[in-house]
């Protein structure tokens, strides 16, 4: 049927398409190499759909252009009309049934993969909470707790604190997604997977990373102003490195806690320095049921400071009376305040002149 | 592609463009409009049942059981108005002016009574549109029904003035027929609203 003219015109087209196909095929048909067990299944389905789709695309596209070129009206043509063909029922049935069979096959393959990615294990090896908020992520390691009972948490914040989700390789991990504000979507391109984080829904999915490395993740559902900045990293490491990381993060967190809210008393002399409208310590401590002294060194020249202890932060804003109020004086100078015994508990200290900039926790606890 | 000179001998313009069989155009337009309204209310009812399905308690604990007496009376009023509306169509179709005008008038009065009753009853409920999902869908369903009844009453009142002026007859009553379809539709919606909000609760 095709004559020389038409073969010539489609000759450049076919090799061109094949070349394109080879290029695409060489790099996973455009999709990145999967780094998870679940992703491998998805990728193989993707390849099936890709090549099938490509075959259909090539066949139909060639048919369209072949028809358009082969049966074009030529200058030598007379005005007579071509044969008036109204249709062919057998052809109609054929091109209804054959595509129907193809999509049924594709549906069965999809069914298998959908089952695979929707599997949620009752006993994952590791469960990590993913908290999405406008506009960053927190990763909460529920299985690893600090002395205070709080779980180990990696926190993200705009603009620069991009959180990293550190996970061990070849481990069945369950990610438990939650949010309190709008809908987000937890998306790791190289896992070939995403799941929406929906307020009011308990969405979770299983993932087993099979390759070590650092992979990028991003929110995929429009969540407001800084949606484009909701980026995170996933770092897949060996089991040993993961243990090290957990241990390191834990001790860092404990130390941080100690420095900010969990400091312990040692002796009846408490030293604190004010400089550049800041206290040098976020946490002070004194022994219970015993008088103690605060040695306060004001190094801000010509600026008033003091140290005052309140029952809580709310007590300051509510205008309650201080448990202890040190004398206000200008720097550079030093005072030693004598403080009456205070009952055991966690208190709040401030500089009365700078009640928002200069604050900290004051612990009264048994010594040792 | 030369177009040959056309032989227009057997060309003619039909006397009437309209296909006379079946529904008249205004009635078909009304029926299609009602179809779109059905989808509108279906969405609201779908919302009701979706919210109900996910609630742990429905209606919420702090909502008292709604008294059912007034809604039953309202239902009776609206059903009666559907009968009188049907009477109006019968009247105009048979050129019985007395039946037509009086039935139409009765329908308008019953519609107004129903409206007052529905609004009054809704205001008696011990919760608001802003008191949770239950309150939101309760008042939304009621308000949109009230709006549709209001539209129906206005349309019927307009027809009543026309009827009093003798504008309709057995050969010209498409508007009356359309209004009757609409009125029956509003009536059926009320049956669903009543069943959903007051009986099933």
């Amino acid at each position, binding site marked *: 049927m095709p004559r020389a003219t038409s073969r010539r015109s489609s000759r450049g087209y076919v090799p061109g398409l094949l070349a394109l196909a080879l290029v695409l095929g060489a790099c996973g048909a455009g999709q990145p190499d999967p780094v998870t067990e679940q992703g491998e299944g998805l990728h193989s389905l993707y390849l099936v759909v890709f090549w099938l*789709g490509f075959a259909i695309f090539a066949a139909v596209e060639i048919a369209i252009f072949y028809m358009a070129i082969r049966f074009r009206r030529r200058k030598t043509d007379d005005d007579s009309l071509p044969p008036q*063909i*109204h*249709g062919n029922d057998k052809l109609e049935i054929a091109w209804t049934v054959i595509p129907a069979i193809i999509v049924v096959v594709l549906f069965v393959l999809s069914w298998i993969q959908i089952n695979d990615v929707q599997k949620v294990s009752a006993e994952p090896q590791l469960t990590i909470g993913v908290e999405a908020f406008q506009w960053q992520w927190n990763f909460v390691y529920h299985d690893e707790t600090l002395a205070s009972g709080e779980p180990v948490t990696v926190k993200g914040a705009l603009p620069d604190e991009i959180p990293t989700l550190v996970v061990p390789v070849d481990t069945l991990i369950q990610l438990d997604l939650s949010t309190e504000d709008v809908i987000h979507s937890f998306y790791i391109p190289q896992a070939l997977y995403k799941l929406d984080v929906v307020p009011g829904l308990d969405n979770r999915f299983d993932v087993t990373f099979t390759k070590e490395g650092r992979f990028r993740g991003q929110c995929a559902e429009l969540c407001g102003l800084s*949606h484009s900045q909701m980026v995170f990293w996933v770092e897949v490491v060996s089991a040993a490195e993961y243990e090290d990381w957990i241990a390191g993060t834990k001790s860092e967190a404990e130390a941080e806690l100690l420095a900010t809210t969990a400091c312990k008393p040692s002796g009846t002399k408490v030293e604190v320095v004010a400089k550049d409208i800041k206290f040098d310590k976020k946490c002070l401590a004194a022994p219970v049921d015993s008088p103690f002294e605060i040695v306060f060194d004001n190094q801000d020249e010509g600026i008033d400071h003091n140290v005052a202890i309140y029952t809580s932060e709310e007590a300051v804003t509510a205008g309650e009376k201080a448990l202890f109020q040190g004398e206000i004086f200008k720097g550079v100078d030093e005072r030693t305040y004598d403080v009456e015994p205070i009952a055991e508990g966690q208190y709040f200290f401030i500089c009365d002149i700078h009640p928002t900039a200069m604050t900290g926790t004051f612990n009264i606890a048994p010594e040792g | *592609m*030369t177009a*040959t000179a056309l032989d*227009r001998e057997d060309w003619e313009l039909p006397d009437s463009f309209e296909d006379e069989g079946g529904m008249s155009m205004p009635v078909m337009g009304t029926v299609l409009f009602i179809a779109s309204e059905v989808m509108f209310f279906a969405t609201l009812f779908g919302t009701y049942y979706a919210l109900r399905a996910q609630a742990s308690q429905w209606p919420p604990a702090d909502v008292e059981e709604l008294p059912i007496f007034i809604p039953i009376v309202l239902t009776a009023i609206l059903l009666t108005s559907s009968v009188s509306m049907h009477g109006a169509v019968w009247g105009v179709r048979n050129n019985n002016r007395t039946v037509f005008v009086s039935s139409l008038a009765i329908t308008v009065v019953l519609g107004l009574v129903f409206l007052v009753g529905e609004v009054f009853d809704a205001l008696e409920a011990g919760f608001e549109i802003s008191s949770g999902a239950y309150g939101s869908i309760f008042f939304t369903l009621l308000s949109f029904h009230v709006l549709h009844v209001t539209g129906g009453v206005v349309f019927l009142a307009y027809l009543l003035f026309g009827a009093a002026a003798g504008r309709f007859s057995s050969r010209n009553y498409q508007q009356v027929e359309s209004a009757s379809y609409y009125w029956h539709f509003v009536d059926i919606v009320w049956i669903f609203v009543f069943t959903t909000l007051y009986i099933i609760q």
Partner: protein
Amino acid sequence: MATTEVRPEAPATDAGYVTAPYRARWFRWFTTTDHKEIAKMYAVTAFFFLLVGGTLALLIRTQLAAPEQTLRLPGLEVTEQVYNEMFTIHATVMVFLFLTPMLAAFGNYFVPLQIGAADMAFPRVNAFSFWLVPAGGIVLFLSYFAGGPAAAGWTSYSPLAGPQFSPGNGVNLWIGALALLGMSSTLGAINFITTIFKLRAPGMTMLRMPIFCWNMLIQSVLILFSFPVVTAGLLLLWIDRNFGGAFFDPANGGNVILYQHIFWYFGHPEVYILILPLMGAISEIIPVFSRKPLFGYKAFVYATLAIGALGTAVWAHHMFTTGAIDVKFFAATSFLISVPTGVKMFNWTATMYKGKIQWSAAMLFAIGFLSMFLIGGITGIFNATGAVDSALHDTYFVVGHFHYVLVSAALFAMFAALFYWFPKMTGRMLNEKLGIWQVVVLFVGVNLTFFPQFALGLQGMPRRIATYSDGLGWGWLNMLSTFGSYLVSVAILLFIINFFWARKRGAIAGDNPWDAYTLEWATTSPPPYYNFDALPPIRTERPVFDANHPEIAASDEDYDHRVSSSTP
């Protein structure tokens, strides 16, 4: 082009011939109820909004051309907020103010003509439907002067579009605009359905009706069953925003996913609403320029019915990644809908087989449509799997996919229809050479714009992001895409030039310059008020062809059979 017969003046005294009531020219546009004038107003309004939405598209593409940039133009800095507003308004304008009214324009002009009617069933309702469109546009753009427009995407998912996260008037006005535009479409749909059922000329049975009218009919039914749903859903959002409702507030017993169900119950049929009439136009154009009848007329009708029916059962494939739906069910229906769509592709291709295809601009645009729609359709298969979609959803792959359908394919089909029908609407021909240039520029342009987006999506670029990091390798693909979008605007500019040129200097068209088949070509160009002074006998789906080529009708073996079998 051969000469065509110039018909003598229509006898003005004939009983069936009606002249338009006299009105001052400027006044006429505000009061007309003539379907052809309303159609022209629809078309001009739609084209205006194409330019508005297109300008926004160019700004969006320019912002994305390079990584980590903030576009600064005199008087405009594309901040995150501005970017979010731009893509929200871009999509809303393109869907509701450009494509929908443009299809209403084609439908308004050609449905009455193709079925041999004098006007639409309800001419005044028709005028009202039109005037709701500029009203909706004004309400939407008022938001720019009332504290800034909506920025929650054209989907306006709650809770992002709710009172807490989108305070201000933007979303309220957006809802108001959509309610007006929805009402316009719904009334239009009622009008089309009634027109098609009641006003067909004697002899025009349903199975002799042009495929374009069939597609308008199915489109109208889809509109009738989907627009009221979204109107109700948006009212619920409105109540949440303004009266303390809790429909979509999970803290107070509401359901976030419910909004998505309501929105996509409308949103997916909307895609078919936007493409069916264009498919109809293509089904008119390909046979005329192939000089053959449409291959498989009945198959087209059934395929369109199947698409319409299945189109209402696939909506949740937009929600595959929510974790709250039955993925398998919606994967199955989404796969199935590709079958009737494929049937159409095959029939269009087969129509060209053994034809004498005239390479007019309209036909080349139609071929472009086939080629582009194929890409849009096949990339849809990836998403339909439900599984592969978990990588592709909400990335530029999806952006590429639906732009191939709603921009590449839709623009090709729209220009095909404009080149085909412009002579009928104005009495003059568009410039063919310029048209062919436009085909080439548009073809290169859309492919350059949207093909790189598949690669970007596969690499993980999410949609609706204001910018992206350097070092991801996305820069050059985005640059290509941006360059392509400029080419698309050049193609549109070529059409505008062609339009104004042809209005003054285009060749006189005559009644039937293409030797086309359907009834709109049985009257003058442009047709008179009330359209026809006489109609040919209608015995097949090609009444004008039969009148022009009695020799074919006589020699066609099937002819008698077809005439008798399609008699009601």
